[in-house]
């Protein structure tokens, strides 16, 4: 097994400072988006996917676990939130909580099953589990099958913020994204994150040092699934629908692609990757199925030519960790 990244050394104060500066720049740039004339819907959508990719990256980049079924968290949280908002009439904050909690429970169940096997089997199991959920949602009445749940009311967050105003919604999504991002950042640099990296590098050795690696992997899986679900719940307010595309295997593939393009195991890579892929889909929408082909070409060239991804290559050039 070769290492995915070269971040096994402990965090230096300089690296911490660099990352904080980049984070501040990123937050500032995102905060001024509504004043630049960029279509806010596009950025909101990209932010949801960025958080999703960051959550996925927590597993693959730091735990060495390639989940090929992360769309199941996106879709499940989306369906549950949408149902809670539209049918139960819950306020937005509770809708988000219910959806995220559903993803957490799903993470517990699917994580318990999939960590029973390692490496490539783990990927195949997560893919199969998400396909199982896809068929369940296809048949379950509350998801409305092919139509999906549409026309979801956005409501007032905490009774104050009117989410039907794009400006308000944008900042709510941005705060959600930044909070999720910081939580992941904190996790990676915690003692828990260090153990996770040691499992990625050499699981038998971590076991021999007395770590119950299965518990660490399960916890990482639940955390990743929960955050992916949180992104899915936020996305419901942006897209105002929840549909089968969000649970399909091709969505899981897109999440992998975003993270791969940005850089597996880099902190900012998944964010960059999500923006690149969403922008690409936006601009190439007229090319129909060629978008799939282009995505495939990007997959192949990323794996063969630049495995570190955009941010990973940049960090390598600058000899920094990003």
């Amino acid at each position, binding site marked *: 097994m070769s290492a995915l990244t070269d971040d096994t050394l402990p965090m230096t104060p300089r690296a911490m400072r660099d990352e904080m500066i980049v984070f501040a720049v990123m937050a500032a740039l995102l905060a001024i988006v509504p004043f630049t004339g960029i279509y806010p819907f596009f950025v909101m959508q990209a932010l949801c996917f960025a958080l999703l990719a960051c959550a996925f990256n927590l597993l693959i980049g730091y735990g060495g676990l390639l989940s090929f079924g992360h769309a199941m968290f996106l879709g499940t949280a989306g369906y549950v939130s949408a149902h809670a908002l539209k049918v139960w009439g819950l306020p937005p904050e509770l809708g988000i909580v219910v959806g995220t909690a559903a993803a957490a429970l799903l993470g517990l169940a699917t994580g318990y*099953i999939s960590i029973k096997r390692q490496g*490539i089997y783990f990927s195949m*199991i997560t893919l199969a589990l998400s396909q199982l959920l896809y068929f369940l949602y296809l048949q379950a009445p509350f998801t409305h099958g092919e139509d999906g749940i549409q026309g979801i009311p956005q409501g007032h967050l905490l009774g104050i913020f009117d989410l039907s105003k794009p400006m308000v919604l944008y900042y709510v999504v941005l705060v959600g994204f930044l909070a999720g991002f910081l939580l992941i950042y904190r996790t990676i640099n915690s003692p828990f994150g260090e153990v996770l990296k040691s499992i990625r590098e050499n699981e038998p050795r971590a076991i021999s040092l007395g770590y119950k690696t299965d518990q660490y992997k399960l916890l990482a899986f639940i955390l990743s699934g929960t955050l992916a679900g949180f992104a899915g719940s936020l996305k419901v307010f942006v897209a105002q629908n929840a549909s089968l595309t969000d649970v399909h295997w091709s969505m899981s593939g897109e999440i992998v692609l975003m993270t791969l393009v940005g850089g597996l195991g880099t902190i900012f890579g998944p964010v960059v990757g999500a923006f690149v892929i969403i922008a690409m889909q936006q601009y190439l929408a007229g090319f129909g199925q060629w978008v*799939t082909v282009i995505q495939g070409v990007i997959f192949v060239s990323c794996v063969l030519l630049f495995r570190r991804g955009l941010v990973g290559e940049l960090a390598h050039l600058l000899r920094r960790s990003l």
Partner: protein
Amino acid sequence: MQALYAQLLVGLINGSFYALLSLGLAVIFGMLNIINFAHGALYMMGAFVAYFLLNLGGINYWWALIIAPVVVGIFGMILERTMLQWLAGLDHLYGLLLTFGIALIVQGVFQNYFGSSGLPYSIPDQLKGGVNLGFMFLPVYRGWVVVFSLVVCLATWFLIEKTQLGAYLRAATENPTLVRAFGINVPRMITLTYGLGVGLAALAGVLSAPINQVRPLMGADLIIVVFAVVVIGGMGSIMGSIITGFALGVIEGLTKYFYPEASNTVVFVLMVVVLLVKPTGLTGRAA
């Protein structure tokens, strides 16, 4: 009862495809340490080659059974030489990502030219019609698919477990460096192995063309089911893959009869049950 037997037959046919595909996956994984996500796309290519042969060249089904696996096998060997070989020594997951990308490209190109609907491929004259077995009506073509797949599976098993070439192959799976030291060209064996695995997928594609029609996405969902089959059976044993493939097909067929709502999901549910009861898979050792 007629309906039950009919569903059992459908199950056996799906089981044949599961067996042929999971067999190829297992052989490829043994030599290349790669899970071939492109397997479903190459299965689809097999069916398309048969379609092209018939409609453009007037070449019949029987020749397609030979030509399609060879053509797709050569395509696979080119993929292996130009791309997959560079992944040797890297983490397994890169093989999965690369072959997923290849699958997207191949399926996307075919979708562009042929849309998502199915193209008809007619059953060859010699296999038309059916036989009345007394308890059920057996369409000849469907019986042929089951028997022929079984023969191909057993021949592959024989090739790998009982011949000199197979012995080299198994040895190279265990310890490629040592086998190279004996003067055997291991890289060439790896290429041929990939060609063989991919050829089996293409053969399954040709067999399926008259039954399921020829569609660009015919392999996309199938490969995920086959992954579950592989998780259930483990990839340690050739015979294990064959038996698991057929058995799961039959179970799926029975589910279609007794509880049709669950027929899409039964293989995945069984995978969960197996993982909870016997995490190493039915025939596999600890991975």
